[in-house]
Protein backbone atom coordinates (compact mmCIF):
# COMPACT_ATOMS: atom_id res chain seq x y z
CA UNK A 1 0.00 0.00 0.00
CA UNK A 2 1.43 3.37 -0.96
CA UNK A 3 1.24 6.47 1.18
CA UNK A 4 -1.83 8.69 0.81
CA UNK A 5 0.23 11.84 0.43
CA UNK A 6 3.86 12.04 -0.59
CA UNK A 7 5.96 15.17 -0.66
CA UNK A 8 9.16 14.85 -2.59
CA UNK A 9 11.70 17.68 -2.64
CA UNK A 10 9.05 20.37 -2.28
CA UNK A 11 10.37 23.91 -2.43
CA UNK A 12 8.86 27.38 -2.20
CA UNK A 13 11.00 30.49 -2.08
CA UNK A 14 9.73 34.03 -1.67
CA UNK A 15 12.64 36.06 -3.03
CA UNK A 16 15.51 35.33 -0.67
CA UNK A 17 13.27 33.69 1.92
CA UNK A 18 13.39 29.92 1.70
CA UNK A 19 9.94 29.34 3.16
CA UNK A 20 9.93 25.65 2.28
CA UNK A 21 13.17 24.10 1.14
CA UNK A 22 13.46 20.60 -0.26
CA UNK A 23 10.94 19.01 2.09
CA UNK A 24 10.10 15.33 1.69
CA UNK A 25 7.86 13.14 3.82
CA UNK A 26 4.86 10.87 3.47
CA UNK A 27 1.49 10.68 5.21
CA UNK A 28 0.39 7.07 5.56
CA UNK A 29 -3.26 6.07 5.20
CA UNK A 30 -5.21 6.28 8.45
CA UNK A 31 -2.55 8.02 10.50
CA UNK A 32 -2.44 11.35 12.28
CA UNK A 33 0.77 13.11 11.34
CA UNK A 34 1.66 16.17 13.39
CA UNK A 35 3.60 18.99 11.78
CA UNK A 36 5.43 21.16 14.30
CA UNK A 37 8.14 23.81 14.27
CA UNK A 38 8.95 27.25 15.65
CA UNK A 39 7.20 30.30 14.20
CA UNK A 40 8.18 30.95 10.63
CA UNK A 41 9.28 27.34 10.14
CA UNK A 42 7.12 27.05 7.02
CA UNK A 43 4.22 24.95 8.31
CA UNK A 44 1.37 27.03 6.95
CA UNK A 45 3.26 27.62 3.68
CA UNK A 46 3.53 23.87 3.34
CA UNK A 47 -0.24 23.55 3.82
CA UNK A 48 -0.71 26.24 1.17
CA UNK A 49 1.44 24.20 -1.21
CA UNK A 50 -0.41 20.97 -0.48
CA UNK A 51 -3.88 22.39 -1.04
CA UNK A 52 -2.93 24.47 -4.05
CA UNK A 53 -2.93 28.03 -2.70
CA UNK A 54 0.71 28.20 -3.85
CA UNK A 55 2.46 26.38 -6.65
CA UNK A 56 5.76 24.84 -5.55
CA UNK A 57 8.94 26.06 -7.26
CA UNK A 58 10.18 22.49 -7.33
CA UNK A 59 9.23 19.03 -6.13
CA UNK A 60 6.29 16.70 -6.35
CA UNK A 61 3.16 16.48 -4.22
CA UNK A 62 1.54 13.13 -4.91
CA UNK A 63 -1.93 12.58 -3.49
CA UNK A 64 -3.43 9.11 -3.82
CA UNK A 65 -1.15 8.39 -6.77
CA UNK A 66 -1.69 11.68 -8.64
CA UNK A 67 0.75 14.60 -8.75
CA UNK A 68 -1.37 17.54 -7.62
CA UNK A 69 1.43 20.15 -7.36
CA UNK A 70 0.20 23.41 -8.88
CA UNK A 71 -3.43 22.37 -9.27
CA UNK A 72 -6.06 24.89 -8.16
CA UNK A 73 -7.43 24.52 -4.60
CA UNK A 74 -10.98 23.70 -5.80
CA UNK A 75 -9.58 20.90 -7.96
CA UNK A 76 -7.56 19.54 -5.07
CA UNK A 77 -10.67 19.59 -2.85
CA UNK A 78 -12.32 17.39 -5.50
CA UNK A 79 -9.51 14.87 -5.12
CA UNK A 80 -10.56 14.44 -1.47
CA UNK A 81 -8.19 16.76 0.32
CA UNK A 82 -9.87 19.24 2.69
CA UNK A 83 -8.48 21.89 4.96
CA UNK A 84 -9.62 23.52 8.19
CA UNK A 85 -8.01 26.96 8.36
CA UNK A 86 -6.29 28.63 11.27
CA UNK A 87 -8.29 31.83 10.81
CA UNK A 88 -11.87 30.68 10.47
CA UNK A 89 -13.98 32.52 7.93
CA UNK A 90 -17.40 30.89 7.73
CA UNK A 91 -20.04 32.26 5.37
CA UNK A 92 -21.36 34.59 8.06
CA UNK A 93 -24.90 35.02 6.78
CA UNK A 94 -25.52 31.34 6.25
CA UNK A 95 -26.50 28.79 8.88
CA UNK A 96 -24.24 26.09 10.20
CA UNK A 97 -26.08 23.57 8.05
CA UNK A 98 -25.77 25.70 4.92
CA UNK A 99 -22.06 26.26 5.52
CA UNK A 100 -21.55 22.52 5.73
CA UNK A 101 -23.67 21.90 2.64
CA UNK A 102 -21.38 24.24 0.71
CA UNK A 103 -18.49 22.15 1.96
CA UNK A 104 -20.24 18.98 0.81
CA UNK A 105 -21.16 20.36 -2.64
CA UNK A 106 -17.58 21.36 -3.37
CA UNK A 107 -15.93 18.36 -1.75
CA UNK A 108 -14.79 15.02 -3.07
CA UNK A 109 -18.10 13.63 -4.27
CA UNK A 110 -19.63 16.58 -6.13
CA UNK A 111 -22.92 15.88 -4.35
CA UNK A 112 -26.32 17.10 -5.47
CA UNK A 113 -28.14 19.22 -2.89
CA UNK A 114 -30.18 16.47 -1.22
CA UNK A 115 -27.12 14.29 -0.67
CA UNK A 116 -25.08 17.31 0.37
CA UNK A 117 -27.70 17.87 3.04
CA UNK A 118 -27.09 14.33 4.32
CA UNK A 119 -23.31 14.69 4.30
CA UNK A 120 -23.62 18.04 6.08
CA UNK A 121 -25.79 16.57 8.84
CA UNK A 122 -23.31 13.76 9.32
CA UNK A 123 -20.41 16.21 9.66
CA UNK A 124 -22.43 18.39 12.03
CA UNK A 125 -23.09 15.37 14.25
CA UNK A 126 -19.39 14.48 14.38
CA UNK A 127 -18.48 18.07 15.28
CA UNK A 128 -21.18 18.17 17.97
CA UNK A 129 -23.03 21.10 16.44
CA UNK A 130 -26.50 19.54 16.15
CA UNK A 131 -28.12 22.12 18.40
CA UNK A 132 -26.62 24.98 16.34
CA UNK A 133 -27.67 23.65 12.96
CA UNK A 134 -29.98 26.57 12.22
CA UNK A 135 -27.77 29.23 13.80
CA UNK A 136 -26.21 31.82 11.52
CA UNK A 137 -22.45 31.36 11.48
CA UNK A 138 -21.93 34.98 12.51
CA UNK A 139 -23.69 34.29 15.81
CA UNK A 140 -21.44 31.41 16.87
CA UNK A 141 -18.81 31.66 19.59
CA UNK A 142 -15.20 31.29 18.48
CA UNK A 143 -15.14 27.69 19.75
CA UNK A 144 -18.25 26.81 17.75
CA UNK A 145 -16.84 28.59 14.68
CA UNK A 146 -13.75 26.41 14.95
CA UNK A 147 -15.92 23.30 15.11
CA UNK A 148 -17.89 24.56 12.11
CA UNK A 149 -14.63 25.03 10.19
CA UNK A 150 -13.86 21.38 10.87
CA UNK A 151 -17.39 20.23 10.04
CA UNK A 152 -17.38 22.17 6.76
CA UNK A 153 -14.13 20.49 5.72
CA UNK A 154 -15.41 17.10 6.82
CA UNK A 155 -18.70 17.47 4.94
CA UNK A 156 -16.72 17.14 1.70
CA UNK A 157 -15.94 13.57 2.81
CA UNK A 158 -12.19 13.95 2.30
CA UNK A 159 -9.61 11.19 2.39
CA UNK A 160 -7.14 13.61 3.93
CA UNK A 161 -7.88 16.45 6.31
CA UNK A 162 -5.39 19.28 6.87
CA UNK A 163 -5.97 20.84 10.29
CA UNK A 164 -4.27 24.20 10.85
CA UNK A 165 -4.28 25.07 14.57
CA UNK A 166 -7.85 24.02 15.26
CA UNK A 167 -7.11 24.08 19.00
CA UNK A 168 -5.72 27.61 19.12
CA UNK A 169 -7.69 30.07 21.23
CA UNK A 170 -9.92 27.45 22.85
CA UNK A 171 -10.32 27.08 26.60
CA UNK A 172 -9.30 23.79 28.25
CA UNK A 173 -12.81 22.29 28.11
CA UNK A 174 -13.18 23.22 24.45
CA UNK A 175 -9.73 21.80 23.71
CA UNK A 176 -10.78 18.48 25.26
CA UNK A 177 -13.96 18.56 23.21
CA UNK A 178 -12.05 19.26 19.99
CA UNK A 179 -9.54 16.48 20.72
CA UNK A 180 -12.52 14.13 21.06
CA UNK A 181 -13.84 15.28 17.68
CA UNK A 182 -10.46 14.73 16.02
CA UNK A 183 -10.39 11.23 17.50
CA UNK A 184 -13.85 10.49 16.08
CA UNK A 185 -12.84 11.73 12.64
CA UNK A 186 -9.78 9.52 12.65
CA UNK A 187 -11.89 6.54 13.78
CA UNK A 188 -13.90 6.97 10.56
CA UNK A 189 -10.73 6.30 8.59
CA UNK A 190 -9.94 9.88 7.60
CA UNK A 191 -6.20 10.54 7.44
CA UNK A 192 -5.10 13.70 9.23
CA UNK A 193 -2.16 16.05 8.80
CA UNK A 194 -2.21 18.67 11.53
CA UNK A 195 -0.35 21.79 12.62
CA UNK A 196 -0.71 22.65 16.27
CA UNK A 197 1.04 24.82 18.83
CA UNK A 198 -0.53 23.09 21.82
CA UNK A 199 2.31 20.65 22.19
CA UNK A 200 0.82 18.35 24.77
CA UNK A 201 -2.20 17.85 22.54
CA UNK A 202 -0.36 17.28 19.29
CA UNK A 203 2.20 14.97 20.88
CA UNK A 204 -0.54 12.78 22.34
CA UNK A 205 -2.81 12.84 19.27
CA UNK A 206 -0.19 12.17 16.59
CA UNK A 207 1.11 8.79 15.51
CA UNK A 208 4.18 10.47 14.07
CA UNK A 209 5.67 13.95 14.05
CA UNK A 210 7.52 15.92 11.37
CA UNK A 211 9.51 18.92 12.59
CA UNK A 212 10.18 21.88 10.29
CA UNK A 213 12.69 24.62 11.03
CA UNK A 214 13.62 27.47 8.70
CA UNK A 215 11.73 25.76 5.89
CA UNK A 216 13.61 22.49 6.15
CA UNK A 217 12.67 19.16 7.64
CA UNK A 218 14.62 18.92 10.88
CA UNK A 219 13.33 15.61 12.21
CA UNK A 220 10.70 12.93 11.71
CA UNK A 221 9.60 10.14 14.03
CA UNK A 222 7.49 9.07 16.96
CA UNK A 223 6.49 11.84 19.39
CA UNK A 224 8.71 10.29 22.07
CA UNK A 225 11.67 10.31 19.66
CA UNK A 226 11.39 13.86 18.32
CA UNK A 227 10.79 15.40 21.75
CA UNK A 228 14.18 14.05 22.84
CA UNK A 229 16.02 14.91 19.64
CA UNK A 230 18.80 17.41 20.51
CA UNK A 231 18.33 19.22 17.16
CA UNK A 232 14.64 19.69 17.87
CA UNK A 233 15.26 20.85 21.42
CA UNK A 234 17.76 23.41 20.16
CA UNK A 235 15.32 24.64 17.52
CA UNK A 236 12.78 25.36 20.24
CA UNK A 237 14.94 26.45 23.16
CA UNK A 238 17.58 28.33 21.19
CA UNK A 239 21.30 28.04 20.64
CA UNK A 240 23.13 27.32 23.92
CA UNK A 241 26.44 28.73 22.62
CA UNK A 242 25.37 32.35 23.08
CA UNK A 243 24.64 31.86 26.76
CA UNK A 244 27.97 30.14 27.27
CA UNK A 245 29.74 33.03 25.59
CA UNK A 246 27.86 35.52 27.71
CA UNK A 247 28.84 33.75 30.90
CA UNK A 248 32.48 33.64 29.81
CA UNK A 249 32.34 37.37 29.11
CA UNK A 250 31.04 38.31 32.54
Amino acid sequence: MTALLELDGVRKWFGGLHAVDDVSFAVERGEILGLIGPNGAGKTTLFNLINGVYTPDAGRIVFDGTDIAGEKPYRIARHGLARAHQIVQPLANMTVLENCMVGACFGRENLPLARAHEAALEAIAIAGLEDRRATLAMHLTIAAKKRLELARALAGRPWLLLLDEVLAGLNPTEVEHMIGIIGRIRARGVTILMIEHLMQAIMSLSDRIVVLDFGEKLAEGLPSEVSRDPLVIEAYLGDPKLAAELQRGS
Partner: protein
Amino acid sequence: MPDALLQVEALEAGYGEVQVLWGVSLNAGSGQLTAIVGANGAGKTTMLRAIAGTIAPWRGRVTFQGKDVTRLPTNVKSARGFALVPEGRQLFSAMTVDENLELGAFSKRAARNYSQRLDQAFSVFPRLAERRRQIAGTLSGGEQQMLALARGLMSDPEILIIDEMSLGLAPVLVCQLFMTLKTLKEAGLTILLVEQNVHLALAVSDYAYVLAEGRVFTEGLPAVLAAKPEIRRAYLGM
Protein backbone atom coordinates in the same frame (compact mmCIF):
# COMPACT_ATOMS: atom_id res chain seq x y z
CA MET B 1 13.14 37.26 46.83
CA PRO B 2 13.35 41.03 47.36
CA ASP B 3 10.22 43.17 47.33
CA ALA B 4 8.29 42.88 44.12
CA LEU B 5 8.17 46.17 42.26
CA LEU B 6 5.59 44.73 39.92
CA GLN B 7 3.03 42.11 40.87
CA VAL B 8 0.74 40.45 38.38
CA GLU B 9 -2.12 38.35 39.69
CA ALA B 10 -4.27 35.95 37.67
CA LEU B 11 -4.05 38.02 34.53
CA GLU B 12 -6.35 37.11 31.66
CA ALA B 13 -6.20 38.78 28.26
CA GLY B 14 -6.63 38.15 24.57
CA TYR B 15 -7.66 39.60 21.24
CA GLY B 16 -11.27 39.81 20.06
CA GLU B 17 -12.86 36.50 20.95
CA VAL B 18 -9.59 34.68 21.40
CA GLN B 19 -8.28 34.35 24.94
CA VAL B 20 -4.50 34.04 25.17
CA LEU B 21 -3.71 34.39 28.88
CA TRP B 22 -5.54 32.15 31.33
CA GLY B 23 -4.66 33.55 34.71
CA VAL B 24 -0.95 34.32 34.80
CA SER B 25 0.67 35.49 38.03
CA LEU B 26 4.21 36.78 38.28
CA ASN B 27 6.42 39.16 40.22
CA ALA B 28 9.28 41.33 39.10
CA GLY B 29 11.61 41.89 42.04
CA SER B 30 13.02 45.35 42.59
CA GLY B 31 16.47 45.66 41.02
CA GLN B 32 16.24 42.21 39.51
CA LEU B 33 16.11 40.86 36.00
CA THR B 34 13.05 38.66 35.62
CA ALA B 35 12.74 36.60 32.46
CA ILE B 36 9.69 35.16 30.76
CA VAL B 37 10.37 32.33 28.34
CA GLY B 38 8.08 30.02 26.42
CA ALA B 39 7.34 28.69 22.97
CA ASN B 40 5.58 30.63 20.25
CA GLY B 41 2.00 31.30 21.09
CA ALA B 42 2.60 30.78 24.80
CA GLY B 43 1.42 34.35 25.47
CA LYS B 44 4.69 36.13 26.28
CA THR B 45 4.12 39.24 24.17
CA THR B 46 0.47 39.41 25.19
CA MET B 47 1.61 39.30 28.81
CA LEU B 48 3.93 42.28 28.32
CA ARG B 49 1.26 44.21 26.42
CA ALA B 50 -1.30 43.63 29.14
CA ILE B 51 1.19 44.71 31.80
CA ALA B 52 2.29 47.83 29.92
CA GLY B 53 -1.32 48.61 29.03
CA THR B 54 -1.12 48.54 25.23
CA ILE B 55 -3.96 46.02 25.47
CA ALA B 56 -6.54 45.99 28.27
CA PRO B 57 -6.48 42.98 30.60
CA TRP B 58 -9.79 41.10 30.74
CA ARG B 59 -9.43 40.02 34.34
CA GLY B 60 -6.77 39.97 37.03
CA ARG B 61 -4.64 42.64 38.62
CA VAL B 62 -1.40 44.48 38.00
CA THR B 63 0.14 46.15 41.04
CA PHE B 64 3.08 48.52 40.76
CA GLN B 65 4.87 49.93 43.80
CA GLY B 66 1.97 48.64 45.86
CA LYS B 67 -0.71 50.44 43.82
CA ASP B 68 -3.29 48.91 41.51
CA VAL B 69 -2.45 50.05 37.97
CA THR B 70 -4.44 47.44 36.05
CA ARG B 71 -6.72 49.89 34.25
CA LEU B 72 -4.40 52.86 33.92
CA PRO B 73 -3.75 54.11 30.37
CA THR B 74 -0.25 53.66 29.00
CA ASN B 75 0.68 57.32 29.25
CA VAL B 76 -0.07 57.31 32.96
CA LYS B 77 1.87 54.09 33.38
CA SER B 78 4.75 55.66 31.52
CA ALA B 79 4.63 58.65 33.83
CA ARG B 80 4.80 56.25 36.79
CA GLY B 81 7.93 54.61 35.42
CA PHE B 82 6.89 51.87 32.98
CA ALA B 83 8.87 51.64 29.76
CA LEU B 84 8.14 49.05 27.06
CA VAL B 85 10.77 48.15 24.48
CA PRO B 86 8.54 46.38 21.97
CA GLU B 87 9.34 43.46 19.73
CA GLY B 88 10.54 44.63 16.33
CA ARG B 89 11.82 47.86 17.95
CA GLN B 90 9.01 50.05 16.57
CA LEU B 91 11.24 53.08 16.14
CA PHE B 92 10.15 56.31 14.53
CA SER B 93 12.15 55.23 11.54
CA ALA B 94 11.92 58.45 9.51
CA MET B 95 13.27 60.45 12.45
CA THR B 96 16.83 60.87 13.65
CA VAL B 97 18.41 59.10 16.60
CA ASP B 98 18.16 62.31 18.63
CA GLU B 99 14.48 62.75 17.80
CA ASN B 100 13.69 59.19 18.80
CA LEU B 101 15.40 59.73 22.13
CA GLU B 102 13.58 63.00 22.62
CA LEU B 103 10.26 61.23 22.11
CA GLY B 104 11.32 58.62 24.63
CA ALA B 105 11.46 61.43 27.18
CA PHE B 106 7.99 62.71 26.34
CA SER B 107 6.49 62.42 29.82
CA LYS B 108 6.86 65.16 32.41
CA ARG B 109 8.73 62.74 34.60
CA ALA B 110 11.34 62.19 31.93
CA ALA B 111 11.56 65.76 30.71
CA ARG B 112 12.80 66.91 34.13
CA ASN B 113 16.45 66.07 33.67
CA TYR B 114 16.57 65.58 29.95
CA SER B 115 20.19 66.41 29.23
CA GLN B 116 21.40 64.23 32.05
CA ARG B 117 19.37 61.32 30.72
CA LEU B 118 20.67 61.89 27.23
CA ASP B 119 24.26 61.77 28.49
CA GLN B 120 23.48 58.56 30.32
CA ALA B 121 21.92 56.97 27.23
CA PHE B 122 24.99 57.83 25.20
CA SER B 123 27.32 56.50 27.85
CA VAL B 124 25.43 53.20 27.79
CA PHE B 125 25.38 53.14 23.97
CA PRO B 126 28.36 55.16 22.68
CA ARG B 127 27.54 54.02 19.14
CA LEU B 128 24.38 56.11 19.22
CA ALA B 129 26.35 59.20 20.20
CA GLU B 130 28.25 58.84 16.92
CA ARG B 131 24.99 58.67 14.98
CA ARG B 132 22.84 61.35 16.56
CA ARG B 133 21.70 62.95 13.29
CA GLN B 134 21.26 59.69 11.42
CA ILE B 135 17.76 58.63 10.37
CA ALA B 136 16.76 55.70 12.59
CA GLY B 137 15.56 53.58 9.67
CA THR B 138 19.04 53.62 8.16
CA LEU B 139 20.75 52.20 11.26
CA SER B 140 21.90 48.59 11.34
CA GLY B 141 19.69 46.06 13.13
CA GLY B 142 21.89 46.08 16.22
CA GLU B 143 22.00 49.87 16.36
CA GLN B 144 18.23 50.01 16.00
CA GLN B 145 17.87 47.68 18.96
CA MET B 146 20.26 49.90 20.95
CA LEU B 147 18.14 52.89 20.04
CA ALA B 148 14.95 51.12 21.11
CA LEU B 149 16.54 50.36 24.49
CA ALA B 150 17.95 53.87 24.80
CA ARG B 151 14.56 55.37 23.99
CA GLY B 152 13.12 53.24 26.79
CA LEU B 153 15.81 54.50 29.17
CA MET B 154 15.06 58.11 28.23
CA SER B 155 11.69 57.83 29.95
CA ASP B 156 13.48 57.46 33.30
CA PRO B 157 11.88 54.09 33.97
CA GLU B 158 11.51 52.25 37.23
CA ILE B 159 11.00 49.12 35.19
CA LEU B 160 12.17 48.37 31.67
CA ILE B 161 9.96 45.83 29.92
CA ILE B 162 11.74 44.28 26.94
CA ASP B 163 10.22 42.05 24.28
CA GLU B 164 12.53 39.78 22.24
CA MET B 165 15.57 41.93 21.72
CA SER B 166 17.76 39.20 20.25
CA LEU B 167 15.55 38.43 17.25
CA GLY B 168 17.44 38.55 13.99
CA LEU B 169 20.66 39.94 15.47
CA ALA B 170 24.19 38.58 15.06
CA PRO B 171 25.40 36.58 18.10
CA VAL B 172 28.15 39.04 18.99
CA LEU B 173 25.62 41.89 19.13
CA VAL B 174 23.22 39.82 21.20
CA CYS B 175 26.00 39.20 23.72
CA GLN B 176 26.80 42.90 23.86
CA LEU B 177 23.18 43.85 24.45
CA PHE B 178 22.78 41.31 27.21
CA MET B 179 25.97 42.54 28.90
CA THR B 180 24.46 46.02 28.78
CA LEU B 181 21.30 44.76 30.47
CA LYS B 182 23.40 43.26 33.25
CA THR B 183 25.14 46.61 33.73
CA LEU B 184 21.83 48.45 33.84
CA LYS B 185 20.50 46.00 36.37
CA GLU B 186 23.58 46.37 38.54
CA ALA B 187 22.94 50.11 38.48
CA GLY B 188 19.56 49.41 40.09
CA LEU B 189 17.13 49.15 37.19
CA THR B 190 14.34 46.56 37.36
CA ILE B 191 13.99 44.61 34.13
CA LEU B 192 11.27 42.30 32.86
CA LEU B 193 12.43 40.49 29.76
CA VAL B 194 10.83 38.20 27.23
CA GLU B 195 13.40 36.15 25.38
CA GLN B 196 13.09 33.36 22.84
CA ASN B 197 16.48 31.84 23.58
CA VAL B 198 15.95 29.97 26.85
CA HIS B 199 19.65 29.54 27.57
CA LEU B 200 20.28 33.26 27.25
CA ALA B 201 17.31 34.12 29.43
CA LEU B 202 18.46 31.75 32.16
CA ALA B 203 22.03 33.00 31.92
CA VAL B 204 21.13 36.62 32.66
CA SER B 205 18.05 36.46 34.84
CA ASP B 206 17.60 36.32 38.60
CA TYR B 207 14.26 34.57 38.33
CA ALA B 208 12.42 33.05 35.40
CA TYR B 209 8.90 32.09 34.42
CA VAL B 210 8.15 29.50 31.77
CA LEU B 211 4.87 30.13 29.99
CA ALA B 212 3.03 27.49 28.02
CA GLU B 213 -0.40 27.77 26.50
CA GLY B 214 -1.19 31.00 28.29
CA ARG B 215 -0.28 29.80 31.78
CA VAL B 216 2.78 29.66 34.00
CA PHE B 217 4.04 26.15 33.35
CA THR B 218 6.86 26.40 35.85
CA GLU B 219 8.99 29.09 37.53
CA GLY B 220 12.09 29.36 39.64
CA LEU B 221 15.70 30.33 39.98
CA PRO B 222 17.48 29.92 36.63
CA ALA B 223 19.98 27.39 37.91
CA VAL B 224 17.18 25.23 39.30
CA LEU B 225 15.08 25.50 36.15
CA ALA B 226 18.00 24.70 33.88
CA ALA B 227 18.47 21.39 35.65
CA LYS B 228 14.86 20.26 35.30
CA PRO B 229 13.10 18.60 32.36
CA GLU B 230 10.05 20.90 32.75
CA ILE B 231 11.28 23.45 30.26
CA ARG B 232 11.57 20.87 27.52
CA ARG B 233 8.10 19.65 28.45
CA ALA B 234 6.73 23.17 28.26
CA TYR B 235 8.12 23.57 24.75
CA LEU B 236 7.71 20.07 23.38
CA GLY B 237 4.78 18.65 25.29
CA MET B 238 6.59 15.62 26.63
